[in-house]
């Protein structure tokens, strides 16, 4: 199976091709059979590959590499250090522990979301189009995570960006959706430009783009720790990651991306695509290990984003927006982990987050489905008994993300918090930010849960009797994901709780860097104490939410009124969109207008001026021709005509006149003759 690893991305590509070329005429049943079956096949193949990968002999355990063909044989050129490089960009697949995790998450969660979409999209127009894009997304994402070099990764990176754009703007007749799609695309473009610059810098620094070669070069010790060029590469690529993974300052597109259908939000904007940035930073761990500056930047941005987005999430009323800000915040956690050098923890959180956030999004989709499209939590409430399966699975997701003990989020989040506290790259401030964020997370998630499922019903009457539990196609994926949200963390059961942390051991070959600072010795007590503290903090968040939204529902409004200024600031998302509009968007528009004016005035003016000049010179030469050249000819003719006048008037053409002349002439001669 490993030898045919390229089949994993090819299956969804096939599905996309079938849907987008022939799907229009197919029935919904045929569309879902093809487009859900193929990602399922892809998942099965990925599991097969994974099992085979585990079975490889110890010496091959670290990486499996499959070269397919040479894509860009760029040839020889000079590297920045003067030596001769020879760049060959291959299309190849690399399976190492890191990409194993990613592939399994992408295909597994992706497949479940495909199944869910059958139910969710059943009554929507453009069914085939939706699944075509979704399959295309799966293909791009799998190319991204299976690529064996940075350029091919970039292809996947752009591919997922395109699919994200297409799917956010799926309801393209709605202006807000079309605008959100464009916003996502344009904001991502900024990050992608930096990504590309980073890749180019890599080419001239290393002379290759292969993951393996670059990692080897970075670990070989030929670059000193803190090397300027490495730091530049890392920061450029991290800017790329901030675009894709919605970090400060480029996170603004993700909340708007909720305009897309909910399965899209779950798949692309929670579980997979937005984690691509984390994956990339983890993939680059060998370089980041050489650059404490870049690591500090990653950690700082991650922590800042975590608390920033969480604070916005506290007051949002749209169920999907809360989850969107939660996603931004959780991605911040992942970057925080990467930034303190705990790449394993970041990837671990990536995986657990994929489960519980996909679950929460799909659950919210199920709620929205039941509520006939209503997304405002102020118009929900008391749905626990009406949609029990959704409610129970949502509760599992909420507990998992809040860090309830022994659920998946607990393990990964505590790993991150512990690392940011104890890692040589971490510090207390990062830890405090992380803990405060954890409290906020617990609060806004339970706020969401209570507003939706508990308390008194605020549902309008005409909606109320339509409320129904979603079909099995939607609830079964919810249950599967709930199982994942509970159990996914168990692979990383920490040693402090008596586990083996199999996950960390599995990923170790990817992340062992000789240049990384050795971790300090720590006592189990300290780790256990911090863990207890973070659980306590989460519990506090839960209790506050319980008191404000269940026990005494009036309190929340009073608190909001009391903290009017801050509340409004948060409700309007710190006015970031407005600030960006004023600072960048409108400036860009001004620049556009100025360039248009320049075009109209100067460029077009020049062309028009040249045209005017030609016309004027044409008119002058026309006048010269008419009056001077023709004039001369006409004057000659006129003179001749005037002078010929006497000769002309005797030429009457009348025979009798001529006869008169003859006669008169004869008479004159006769008279003359007679007189002489």
């Amino acid at each position, binding site marked *: 199976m490993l030898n045919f690893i390229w089949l994993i991305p090819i299956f969804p590509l096939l599905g996309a091709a079938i849907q987008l070329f022939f799907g229009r005429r197919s029935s919904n049943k045929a569309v879902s059979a093809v487009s859900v079956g193929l990602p399922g096949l892809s998942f099965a193949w990925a599991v097969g590959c994974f099992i085979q990968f585990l079975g490889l002999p110890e010496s091959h355990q670290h990486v499996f590499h499959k070269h397919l063909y040479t894509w860009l044989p760029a040839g020889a050129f000079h590297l920045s250090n003067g030596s001769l490089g020879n760049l060959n960009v291959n299309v190849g697949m690399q399976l190492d522990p890191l990409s194993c995790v990613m592939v399994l998450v992408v295909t597994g969660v992706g497949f479940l979301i495909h199944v869910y979409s059958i139910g969710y999209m059943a009554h929507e127009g453009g069914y085939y189009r939706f699944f075509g894009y979704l399959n295309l997304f799966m293909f791009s994402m799998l190319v991204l995570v299976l690529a064996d070099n940075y350029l091919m990764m970039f292809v996947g990176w752009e591919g997922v960006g395109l699919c994200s754009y297409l799917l956010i703007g799926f309801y393209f007749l709605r202006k807000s959706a079309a605008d959100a799609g464009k916003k996502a695309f344009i904001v991502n473009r900024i990050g992608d430009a930096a990504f590309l610059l980073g890749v180019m810098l890599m080419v001239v620094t290393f002379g290759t783009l292969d993951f393996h070669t670059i990692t080897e070069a970075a670990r070989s010790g030929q670059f000193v720790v803190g090397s300027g060029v490495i730091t530049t590469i890392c920061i450029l690529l991290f800017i790329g990651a901030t675009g894709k993974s919605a970090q400060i300052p480029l996170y603004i597109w993700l909340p708007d991306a909720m305009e897309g259908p909910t399965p899209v939000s779950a798949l692309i904007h929670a579980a997979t695509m937005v984690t691509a940035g984390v994956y990339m930073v983890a993939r680059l761990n060998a370089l980041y290990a050489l650059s404490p500056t870049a690591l500090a930047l990653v950690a700082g941005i991650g922590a800042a984003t975590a608390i920033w987005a969480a604070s916005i999430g506290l007051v949002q009323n749209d169920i999907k927006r809360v989850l969107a800000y939660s996603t931004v915040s959780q991605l911040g956690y992942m970057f925080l982990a990467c930034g303190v050098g705990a790449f394993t923890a970041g990837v671990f959180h990536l995986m657990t987050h994929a489960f519980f956030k996909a679950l929460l999004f799909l659950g919210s989709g199920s709620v929205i489905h039941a509520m006939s499209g209503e997304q405002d939590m102020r118009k929900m409430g008391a749905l626990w008994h009406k949609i029990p399966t959704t409610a129970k699975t949502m509760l599992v997701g909420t507990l998992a993300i809040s860090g309830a003990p022994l659920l998946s989020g607990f393990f990964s989040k505590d790993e991150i918090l512990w690392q940011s506290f104890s890692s040589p790259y971490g510090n207390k401030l990062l830890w405090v930010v992380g803990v405060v964020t954890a409290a906020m997370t617990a609060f806004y998630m339970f706020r969401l849960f209570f507003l939706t499922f508990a308390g008194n019903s605020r549902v309008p009457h005409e909606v109320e009797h339509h409320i129904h539990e979603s079909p099995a196609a939607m609830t079964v994926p919810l249950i599967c994901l709930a199982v994942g949200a509970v159990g996914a963390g168990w692979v990383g059961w920490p040693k402090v709780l008596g586990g083996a942390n199999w996950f960390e051991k599995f990923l170790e070959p990817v992340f062992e860097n000789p240049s990384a600072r050795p971790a300090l010795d720590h006592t189990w007590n300290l780790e256990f104490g911090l863990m207890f503290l973070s659980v306590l903090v989460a519990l506090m968040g839960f209790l506050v939410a319980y008191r404000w939204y269940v026990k005494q529902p009036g309190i929340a409004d009073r608190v909001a009124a009391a903290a009017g200024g801050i509340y409004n600031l948060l409700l309007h998302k710190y006015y970031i969109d407005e600030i960006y509009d004023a600072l960048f968007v409108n400036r860009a528009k001004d620049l556009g207008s100025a360039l248009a004016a320049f075009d109209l005035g100067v460029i077009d003016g020049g062309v028009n001026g040249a045209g005017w000049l030609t016309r004027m010179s044409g008119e002058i030469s026309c006048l010269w021709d008419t009056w001077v050249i023709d004039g001369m000819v006409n004057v000659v003719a006129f003179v001749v005509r005037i002078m010929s006048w006497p000769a*002309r008037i005797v030429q*009457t*053409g*009348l025979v*009798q006149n001529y006869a008169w002349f003859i*006669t008169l002439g004869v008479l004159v001669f006769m008279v003359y003759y007679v007189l002489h």
Partner: protein
Amino acid sequence: MILTEYYIFLGTGLFIIGVIGVLTRRNVLIILMSIELILNAVNINLMAFSQYFKSVDGQVFAIFVITDAAAEAAVGLGLIIAFFRNKETVNADEIDLLKW
């Protein structure tokens, strides 16, 4: 015996009538007829001097002139008919094709 002078007077009169006819009339047919008058005036002149000089030369010339007049009348009428077919007119004022 009629005096030669009378013949000459008759011829001159006929000639002047013919010339006036040629110069003033507008109808081409009349002009043609006036030309006949002129020719006949010449004939009378020839005959008169033939008699005066007791020579037949003049009579011979007269016969030539008559022959010539007949030919000329035939050609002239032919021209007039051809012209009339084209222009539907026999008015000499409207026949000015000789102009430039």
